[in-house]
């Protein structure tokens, strides 16, 4: 086969999608007076912190998530290096290689986006964009404080899981559009993996919801005034963490990307910026899951010392994020059939047991 590649700009449907996105953004930002409201709020001072445009672009939206993702990648590499008696990034930015992520980003952006001749161009290009979109959507429903939430919603815990369950579909889209055996196997593994971890994850998230008597994350956090739900719902918290590791495709659940078996799983054919978007989406997902864990089990923005509520959420979620990043160096990858067996066996049983344990302990301590 000769190494011809297709140009994405030849595809009509690609331009249709792009124009749709542009129209939506213009319709929301310009026509809806959002921009003018933002400018007015910006002049008036602290009120800007609750402005929808500020929330979605700066904090806790795009800018915050991108910066934390970049820091997380750097910290992950440094932690792994320390555990593995290596040095890690060292040269970019002179001091301990702190600009390594920037250098990598520039390198990735400068690379050619290779589109193999056999792929379905529209979906091949759309998949990484959709993946990052789903990641960013998942952060919109997680509250950082009663006012700092991009999309307030009465049952936002359910909405979060509804959004997050779209991730394997984007993986399937990428794998299917790649028209490659490795990609398709990886995508199928991603779907299988979702089928195994999602139910334990939902059941263990139900424990704090039952203790608080609400499916609204804000109410769940406010119900932890006296005691974080981590103590009554300890088993649920552990299962939730394990399921979140599976959700982010990190070790020991890095099954869809198993590089010694299926090259890079559903990301095999991707290069350049689209690949970066996938990677970013994974870290965004990690950030939103760790923030949700903070809200559900670690009493969210409530803390012993009076700090800005967002600060508590951010600090706690970073600690949870550190757990995500450290586990990677300790465990090998398990097999997909073992993952399914675990998800439908011990994890499911333990999550149900954790639910009952949480209710029993909650009654004991009088929550």
């Amino acid at each position, binding site marked *: 086969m000769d190494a011809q590649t297709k140009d994405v700009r030849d595809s009509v449907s690609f331009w249709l999608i792009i124009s749709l996105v542009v129209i939506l953004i213009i319709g929301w930002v310009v026509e809806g007076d959002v921009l003018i409201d933002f400018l007015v709020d910006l002049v008036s001072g602290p009120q800007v912190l609750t402005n929808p445009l500020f929330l979605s672009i700066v904090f806790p939206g795009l800018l915050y998530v991108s910066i934390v993702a970049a820091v997380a990648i750097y910290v992950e590499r440094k932690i792994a290096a320390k555990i593995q008696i290596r040095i890690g990034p060292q040269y970019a930015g002179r001091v301990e290689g702190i600009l390594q992520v920037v250098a990598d980003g520039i390198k990735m952006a400068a690379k050619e986006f290779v589109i193999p001749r056999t792929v379905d161009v529209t979906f091949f290009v759309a998949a990484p964009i959709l993946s990052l979109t789903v990641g960013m959507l998942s952060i919109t429903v997680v509250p950082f404080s009663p006012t700092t939430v991009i999309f307030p919603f009465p049952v936002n815990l359910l909405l979060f899981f509804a959004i997050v369950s779209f991730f394997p579909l984007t993986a399937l889209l990428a794998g299917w559009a790649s028209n490659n055996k490795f990609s398709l196997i990886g995508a199928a593994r991603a779907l299988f993996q979702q089928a195994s971890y999602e139910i334990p994850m939902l059941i263990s998230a139900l424990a704090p919801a039952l203790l608080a008597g609400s499916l609204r994350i804000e109410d769940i956090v406010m119900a932890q005034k006296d005691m974080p739900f981590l103590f009554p719902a300890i088993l649920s918290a552990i299962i939730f963490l394990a399921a979140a590791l599976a959700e982010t495709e990190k070790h*020991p659940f890095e099954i869809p990307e*198993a*590089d*010694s078996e299926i090259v890079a799983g559903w990301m095999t054919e991707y290069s350049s910026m689209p690949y970066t978007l996938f990677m970013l989406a994974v870290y965004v997902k990690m950030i939103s899951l760790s923030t949700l864990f903070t809200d559900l089990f670690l009493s969210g923005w409530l803390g012993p010392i009076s700090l800005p509520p967002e600060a508590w959420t951010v600090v706690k979620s970073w600690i949870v994020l550190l757990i995500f990043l450290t586990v990677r160096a300790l465990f*090998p*990858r398990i*097999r997909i*059939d073992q993952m399914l067996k675990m998800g439908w066996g011990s994890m499911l049983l333990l999550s149900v047991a954790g639910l009952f344990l949480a209710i029993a302990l909650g009654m004991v301590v009088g929550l």
Partner: protein
Amino acid sequence: MSYYQLVPGVYVEELPEKEGKITVSIGPQHPGSGHFRLIITIDGDVVVDADPDPGYVHRGEEKMCETRDYIQNIPHLERPVVLDSAGIQFPYILAAEEILDIKDKVPEKAKYLRILLAEFNRVISHFYFLAIQAIFLGHSTVLEWSMADREVLMDLAAMLTGARVTFAYFVPGGVRSDVPSGFVDQTLKAVGYLRSRMKEYWRMLVDNPFMKMRMEGVGVLKAKDAIELGAVGPNLRASGVEYDIRKVDPYSLYDTVEFHVPTYKEGDTMSRIKIRLDEINESLGIIEQVVRKLDGMRGPVRHLVKGAALRAKPGEAYARTEAARGMMSFYIISDGGRTPYRVKVDTPSFRNMKLIPVLLKDVRVADVPIVFWSIDYWPVEADR
């Protein structure tokens, strides 16, 4: 039928394809294969048939031996087994000394130095094995650890021989150079360090619940099968057969050092990991004993052979040793010239290749890399 074009338009290979099953060619360019191809037939997610296809890195080492004299043969013979270069040198040197009739003139100190370097190389080779096995399992920490801890012994070997990987240290009649100053202390320090590290390896690789999930009961080789297929080395011992040339047929003063031969009953992938960890510990014990013996030992390390003495009498010689991957043997025939008439190398990887179809049968596709690597098959060594 599916076809693989080896050379486009010139040679088309036909692979038998069974009804409802998929034939996959792993390698020679797959990240998990090495210079080697494995044709597996899969039914769903389970391997029903595995067919090894070696020969990509045949170098004609045996033929090359016929045009070089007994000293010139040393460097090129190391190339097939760079990770265990002392392992392949040892039987060659023993056989060459037998055929040159200088077997009794080798100094005692040289014999101990040979044991020392061979055990260094066994540890280095086993660490490399652990590294690759770990990365096939998706465990990058043990990869980096093993690669880093290999360096400790490679630096010591460089101190002793001047080279890190291919030492060319053994010569007919002894070894090339004496122990440098400070070597004994540094080796004892390194042994202490590696001993403490081995506990962490054990915790990371064996006492790790996910490692147990992946490797216990996967790729089982029964003792009976292992004997019938002619398995050698750690793979044979992991199946419960206690057979080590160092014990069975002691050579080069191995009978004066104390060590025991670890065996495991299970014969699964996990026991093949455990046996290598145990062997590293045993080798460290041997290194410690030998270094203590070398400390203060005086005398020459080489009986110099040159000129007419390099011309062997007509005859034949055979020597076998326990290399890192198993029994390695050399058979040399001389017709009285400066060069051997014929050299036959019997490498452990070639013998262990027969295990691949048996071990990979009924294994899941995701387990193919770890089961394949667990026998420590090295394509270059098998192809020679």
